[in-house]
């Protein structure tokens, strides 16, 4: 490889906790790796496994799902649903051909700016070691000629 590999991380976060935590990292001027792209959603309960597959297909090397700590969900129980969904989805990962370490699940509260920054740095480092996730991107090239999504 001529250039060092720069991983792309897509983070699906809830607006009440982790998005606010990421904002706090900003207002605290904490520096972290620029490899993360954040998709804001109302709640982790809204996050479909399809979003994760789509992100990996589109070139993400690691996907992060993060929301409010258990018990802190703005919507009472969305994060519990997300956690259960993750348990089920994890069982399907082998079938989808995705290594488990490509998907990360975490709780970051609105007060945990430092945790968010640290977590992004960790994930970036670990993904760098894992190398690019190309299986799905190759699949994407085929799809792009057909799909309109």
């Amino acid at each position: 490889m001529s250039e060092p590999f720069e991983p792309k991380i897509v983070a699906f976060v809830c607006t009440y906790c982790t998005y606010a935590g990421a904002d706090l990292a900003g207002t605290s001027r904490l520096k972290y790796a620029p490899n993360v792209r954040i998709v804001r959603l109302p709640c982790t309960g809204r996050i479909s496994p399809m979003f994760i597959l789509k992100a990996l297909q589109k070139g993400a090397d690691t996907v992060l799902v993060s929301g409010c700590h258990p018990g802190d969900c703005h919507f009472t129980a969305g994060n519990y649903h997300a956690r259960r969904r993750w348990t089920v989805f994890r069982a399907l990962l082998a079938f989808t051909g995705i290594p488990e370490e490509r998907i990360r699940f975490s709780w970051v509260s609105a007060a945990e700016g430092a945790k968010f920054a640290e977590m992004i740095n960790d994930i970036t480092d670990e993904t760098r070691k894992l190398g690019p996730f190309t299986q799905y991107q190759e699949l994407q090239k085929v799809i792009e000629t057909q799909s309109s999504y």
Partner: protein
Amino acid sequence: MAKIGVFVCHCGENIASKVDTGILVKSLSDHPGVEICQEYKYFCSDPGQETVKRAIREHKLTGVVVAACSPRMHEVTFRKACAEAGLNPYMLELANIREQCSWVHSEKDQATSKAIEITRSLVEKVKRNNELKPISVPVTRRALVIGGGIAGIQAALDIAGAGREVVLVEREPSIGGHMSQLSETFPTLDCSQCILTPRMVEAIQHPKITVMTYSEVEEVEGYIGNFTAKIRKKARYVDMDKCTGCGDCIQKCPVKKISNEFELGLSNRTAIYTPFAQAVPNVPVIDKSRCTYFKNGKCKICEKSCQIDAIDFEQQESVETIEFGAIVVATGFQIQDTSVYGEYGYGKYKDVITGLHFERLASASGPTAGKIQRPSDGKEPETVVFIQCAGSRDPSKGVKYCSKICCMYTAKHAMLYTHKHHGSNSKIFYMDIRAAGKGYDEFTRRAIEEDGADYLRGRVSKVFEENGKLIVRGVDTLLGKPVEVKADMVVLATAMVPQPDAKNFAKRIGIGYDEYGFYNEAHLKLRPVETAKAGIYLCGACQSPKDIPDSVSQASAAAAKVLGLFSREQLEREPVVAAVGESTCAGCWGCVYACPYNAIEKKDITDRNGNLIKQVASVNPGLCQGCGTCVTFCRSNSIDLAGFTEKQIFAEVMAL
């Protein structure tokens, strides 16, 4: 065809120093669908917003992306600007290139390319945004206040005073709550009845307040502005409209030996009774379980004694269904059952009593007409020992928390005792004196310095009887010595605990409670009178142990919240709610299970002859809070969340 305007803000140097805005603008200008892309030093300023508005009008923009700070900061600002320029405010997205880009990255080229990707993905999202209208929910401007203690009365009076209808529901035959049982109140020593009864009368006479005593709230359905409550009115067997409260029936009732609950068993009552002399409404009830007629089918002496035929043995309980816009929960507390402290002899020795018993003894309207007498033999006690924290701050046997009022009422009891019985001797075992409040510390100092209350710091290990005296064995930790006091009476400062059915009731009306059963507020500091369920508010000791001033202030605060809600006829809500595509919905009810707000109902689809074709899910936009959990549950992709639709999010991801 989409015409998107992209506005890149420098935020002074905050963004521009780390993101090359020139490159960002150039890159976005070439993006398909982008009509205009501009940069400016401060888009949130007035001239900045004017630029956005002008662009919307001149270019007939269909969507706007402002690449600036977090949407948590300025989404509202720019939504307003869009609306003023004639664009639907939900056709706006904020690309967060400050908090989540320029402030957290140091390499300019990396930050710039990240900013481009963030903005681009939101351009793709905004192309798929739909025009949304705020949801209007009608507000029934009538409040339900549950609990007729001082907190409930205060909340009802405040709401009614502002001209709104109130229904005050109390399960006992009279309003007044625990405050009506108290003798004098700290720190001013004014008589509880003297300050409370005028409020009780004011409540029942208020034209806007309907007082429903001997009634219980069975069930609450609905949501903010639109609750429906079922209230069970228990049969009183006395006609409320006819009864004048003369009391003849009570005089004549032959069943006289029933332990009086209001007097905590210190005196007896009849089978037809009012709980206390100043009861409001002053209408007796018949205790069906003790009444001779109901037991044997014979007696009816009360009926014969009643000159206006107010007694009605045929009366049935009834359930009323009433609509409300807001609910104030003021269900109060109970005192802990002190029999868990076997070593203090409560229940075994008649002269070991609780603080509430002492209130009744000291009360001028109580069983002893205000004389402090021993329950066992009616003698005036020479030495009284007060044991504080008999339940509170004791995780092993009692409760972990501080009941807050006991330090004050124990000091008051010692004072009242001295005032009523000169030369008396009161000894108080305490852990700490917690007298925080206006005039409170001065009050406890007065008890010690002027009224001779003897405070001993330490716990009591045992109370036992010896030669007609109660021996209180404890320790004085300041002297480091065991002490023994020969007492004539022992008063336990028992803990305040939630009502025994508090948890069940919370479940029925859909609010949260803590490990003890006290009701949870939405935020302990910033939203102390709201619950997590919009439209339901809290006041008084059902939330945590409280004294009268705190209960009353919280009641007024809850009333202010209710009146704020009632200030409008319609409640405007964010239109970020789910909606069902009925043509594809298969009625699997996965969404119904997923919804934490019970916002999804089953809806019948019928043909024109009224035959049922199928059942589909239907979202009540008044209840839906917009979390989107149902969307992810839907097996047939039939449900979607406005503002965060599948199309929008996939487009956003694809552009990253």
